Structures are given as C-alpha cells and as structure tokens.
C-alpha cells in the first residue's frame, strides 16, 4: 500500500489522475474501519487532511460552499443558523470523536444509503462540486447517488466542496435508531420548506438502495399548503394533507428487512417522521410569518 500526501488541491488532483485507484482519506471514519477490520485493502491512501483549501466554507450569494474537509463538529458550530437541516443531521452522527473527524464529503464518498448527511442535502437541493484535472463538474445531489454505496464520481475525480442553498424556510431532520448516540439510522427523513418559490424538499435515508427524494410527496404538499400568510397569520395544517403527505413519503421508499429493522417498520416510521417534521416545519413557518408583521 502507498500513502500519498497532497499539500495543495492541484497536487491532490494530479495524484488522483495518476493513481485513480487510490482511496482518498479525510476523517478516516469509514476508510480506517474497512482497513482495520480487513474488509478491503486499498492500493493506496490519498490523504486530503493536508490540503488547506478543503478546510473552510464560504458564503457565495444564496449558497454556502462547504469545503470537503469541513467536519461535522464545525458544521454544527458554525453553520447551524444557515443550514439548520444539515446541522441537525450532523448532531446525530456517531459521537463527539467521530464528529471531530468525519466530514460531509466523506459521507458522500461512502454514499451509504444510511448516511445522515444525505436527506438534508436532498431536501435543500444541494450540488456536489466534483473536480479532476479535466475540470469542475457540478452534480445535482439527487443525481449523485447511483447505487448502494455508489456515487457519480469518475475515478479521477475528487469532491472539492458541497454547495448548499442557505435555508429560506424551516428545515427538519429526524432519525430512528436504538439509542441517542452512535446509531446508524434504521431510517431517516428530512424536510425543507422553500417559501420563496413555494416548493417542498424531502430526503429519505436508509429505506432504499440509495438516499432519495419523495418527489410525489413534495409536489402534492407544495400544492396543498396555504402559503399565504394573510391577516390571520396563515392557516393551520390540515391533518388530512399531513396524512396524505406521510403516505406518499412512505410510498416513495423501497425498504428491505435487515438487522436494523423490518421493511414494514421502516415504512411506518417514515410516515410518522414525515408527519411530525412537517408539523414542526409548518409551526415554524406560521410563527415566523406572525413575527414578521
């Protein structure tokens, strides 16, 4: 095995072009588990910790560009206000030690259907910034996941950053597991309301071969919600609308029975999470509307 060290982003891209089989490593919280447990032995490790360009985030208009090296701990501390859904999901990842090392780009690289970063990225409509010596490619998040633990990166590409729209409305993330910490999701769900264009975003985790949006549920809800915050300060959520939304979310998934849960349980839990997170989000939407007047 070789250990390749990149000092700059340009160097990292060159190394990846020369050695497309090399496994990039950031927090190592997925890569090192594989090596320690002898589940696979990469031909080479390409360490990105030393690439300074990846370590920060920046605001670019209505977007936040999260560098590939930004840890969950920093997402929580520094981006909780502007990317609330992602920060909520980050808080549920592993343990403090894991959050101190693990990164969103690592979550995308691993592309586990259970990764907690995926649902909020789907709900907010993020874009993955992939780069190689050939150039930059912007991959819409919904097209990034191509199969179980597979993603749309070419062999010579690396993730430079994830671009996430700043929240213009309420966002929530919810996850089912057996304890409050150190839990791989049995299933998870994220919702984002986009009042600026009266759209709804969703993301489902751990209930299909890939993370995915509940597209029909989004369209249904966007059409049913009474977005107008009129004199009465907007109207309460219609329970029938919430129930139908929940049903459509559960219907979008393709869960299986496995050690963490049964398919039927996952469908049920998804519907519950969809209804609850919608309730919280709508409550916030109305409250913010009232506060604005």
């Amino acid at each position, binding site marked *: 095995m*070789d250990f390749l060290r990149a000092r700059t982003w340009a160097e990292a891209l060159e190394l990846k072009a020369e050695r497309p089989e090399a496994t990039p490593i950031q927090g190592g919280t997925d890569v*090192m588990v594989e090596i*320690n447990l002898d589940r696979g032995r990469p031909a080479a490790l390409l*360490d990105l910790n030393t690439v300074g360009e990846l370590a920060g985030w920046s605001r670019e208009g209505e977007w936040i560009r999260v560098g590939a090296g930004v840890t969950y701990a920093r997402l929580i501390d520094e981006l909780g206000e502007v990317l609330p859904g992602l920060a909520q999901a980050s808080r549920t990842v592993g343990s403090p*030690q894991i959050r101190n090392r693990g990164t969103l780009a690592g979550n995308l690289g691993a592309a586990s259907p259970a990764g907690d970063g995926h649902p909020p990225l789907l709900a907010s409509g993020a874009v993955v910034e992939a780069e190689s010596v050939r150039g930059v490619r912007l991959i819409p998040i919904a097209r990034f996941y191509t199969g179980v633990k597979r993603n749309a990166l070419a062999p010579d590409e690396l993730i430079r950053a994830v671009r996430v729209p700043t929240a213009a409305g309420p966002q929530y993330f919810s996850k089912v597991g057996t304890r409050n910490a150190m839990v791989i999701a049995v299933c998870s769900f994220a919702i984002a309301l986009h009042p600026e264009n009266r759209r709804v975003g969703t993301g489902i985790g751990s209930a299909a071969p890939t993370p995915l949006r509940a597209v029909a549920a989004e369209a249904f809800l966007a059409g049913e919600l009474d977005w107008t915050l009129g004199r009465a300060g907007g109207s309460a959520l219609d329970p029938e609308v919430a129930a139908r939304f929940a049903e459509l979310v559960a219907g979008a998934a393709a869960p299986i029975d496995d050690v963490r849960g049964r398919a039927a349980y996952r469908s049920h839990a998804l519907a519950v999470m969809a209804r609850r997170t919608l309730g919280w989000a709508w409550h916030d939407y109305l409250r913010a509307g009232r506060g604005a007047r």
Partner: protein
Amino acid sequence: MRVNVTVNGRKTAADDVWEGESLLYVLRERLGLPGAKNACEQGECGSCTVYLDGTPVCACLVAAGQAEGREVVTVEGLASGDAQAAGEGGLHDVQRAFLAAGAVQCGFCTPGLIVQAHALVERAAGRVPDDAEIREALAGNLCRCTGYEKILDAVRLAAAQRATPTAPTPSP
C-alpha cells in the same frame, strides 16, 4: 514509511510503519505508549481517544501517515511530570477525580474517558456541566463495568475542582 509526530510534547519518529496502520497502533506498538486502549478498532468504544492537534479523536481511525507533523497528547501526557515517580501526586486532577469517585473498575475504558472528560472540563472552563452535557460529551465512550454513574460523578467533581482554585472574581 517513517512517521514524524510530536507526542506528549516530545518530537519522535516511528519507523517501518505500514501505510494502512492506525495512529493507535503506532502509539501502542511502536512508541511504547499503551495508555490508549485498543478494543474495537472501529470508532465505537472511545477507549483509544487521544488529542490530535488539541481535538479528541479515536486514534484507531487516524491513519498513521495523517499524524505526520502533528501533535498528539495521550492519557500519559495529561499527568504532570513523571507520574510513576511522583505516585498519585503526579496525576492530573481529572485522573484523581476518577479515583476519588470510584469511576474505575477494570480500567480498560478509563484512559479514553479521561481524555474525553479532560476535554469537556477544559471546555467548561470552571462551569460544572449539567447531566445532559456530560452524557452527550461521553456518548462515544463505552464502559462495561461501572454503569456510568460514578463516571458522571467524577466529571462533576473534576469540573467543580477546576472551578474552585481559579474561580474568577465576579466582575463589577
């Protein structure tokens, strides 16, 4: 390969390191520092917790080569001076609090918990964290023996002790 790393304030180098090796293996097997424990090698138990550039991490998940040129502090580095020579007197306050509270049984989880508790007590900087905060901070450290209650006591004790000697005088 060779890995140059500062451990507990001393610059040191490990030779013949395999490229897929973890920092934990380097510390224990190559640098003679068995404080950080190896229990799961998959980030689940926290018994290998060390500081990497001031941040607590699982040493089993850091590739040895990633520690190149960086600073590591292990549980051995928390005690002041030569702990063995000084006896219990050389121990850090957090270590003493664990002894006083009876938070150590078999002791396997202890080094990782000491480092993680140390980080919490330092961050609290004289405030005694509430239960929820302590539980959250220690959520990545498993203990099979104590049932955790005495560990919580130890953290509260260490935090309170840190508060007392340097208690800031209230500003006017």
